[in-house]
């Protein structure tokens, strides 16, 4: 199952495509049931609390990630919800208020499973690039930490 990520230069878009060995109904269920969403959304080693996850047109959501360095809260509103097919929602990290992304998720049945297509539209090219760079910097720190752990063990 290979993942395609497109981040065309000079645009505020991120497009992700991935196939799953499941039916659209199953994928829709784990994407919208709050008890199931907590089991996959958010990076490793982060505790996640879902305060609200009301997937219906006009419904809203808010969840919080916690680690040693603090809390990160995210919120948004569900704009369009079509069972087993489509969810359009807003997404905002409360640490950068006003930088609201628009996210569209479509589920499409294939011969062997279901194809997930996610399109994120950031408020600017800069906001998109910063978001991706933050992930990279986090990754560099993560790798440095892992290296430090290995060295501490005398590897």
């Amino acid at each position, binding site marked *: 199952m290979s993942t395609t*990520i497109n981040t065309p230069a000079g645009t505020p878009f991120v497009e992700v495509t991935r196939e*799953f*060995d499941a039916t659209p109904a199953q*994928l829709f269920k784990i994407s919208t049931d709050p008890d*199931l969403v907590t089991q996959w959304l958010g990076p490793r080693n982060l505790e996640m609390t879902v305060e609200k996850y009301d997937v219906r047109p006009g419904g809203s959501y808010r969840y919080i990630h916690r680690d040693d360095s603090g809390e990160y809260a995210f919120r948004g509103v569900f704009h369009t919800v079509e069972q087993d097919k489509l969810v359009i929602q807003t997404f905002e990290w409360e640490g950068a208020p006003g930088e609201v992304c628009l996210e569209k998720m479509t589920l499409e049945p294939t011969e062997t499973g279901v194809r997930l297509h996610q399109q994120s539209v950031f408020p600017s090219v800069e906001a998109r690039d910063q978001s991706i760079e933050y992930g990279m910097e986090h990754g560099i720190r993560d790798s440095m930490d892992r290296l430090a752990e290995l060295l501490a063990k005398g590897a």
Partner: protein
Amino acid sequence: MSVDDEQLDRAFTALGDPVRRAMIARLSRGPATVNELAEPFPITKQAVSRHIQVLETAGLITRTRDGQRRPCHLVPAALEALTSWIDEYRLETERRFRRMDALLQTVREQEQ
């Protein structure tokens, strides 16, 4: 210490600073001038030049001449060595999808 060890040491020392890590992340998107690299940071141009020098000595970046501009580039070999870090965005996305795979397996089993 071998030459390789010294090089690796310099690379890790260079990356031990948040400003220099941010510069590397910026350069992973393409070349940039000193002024462009300095833009996000509230530090003097001299401090930025010192950071760039540390990255250059560590063999992580090079500078070329393009008319009046002297843009900085990531060294392709260094870029390759850093791939697993620079691809973190991709890795995190893939980890999330693997967690979804595992959960879908459970859902399938429950439905049977």
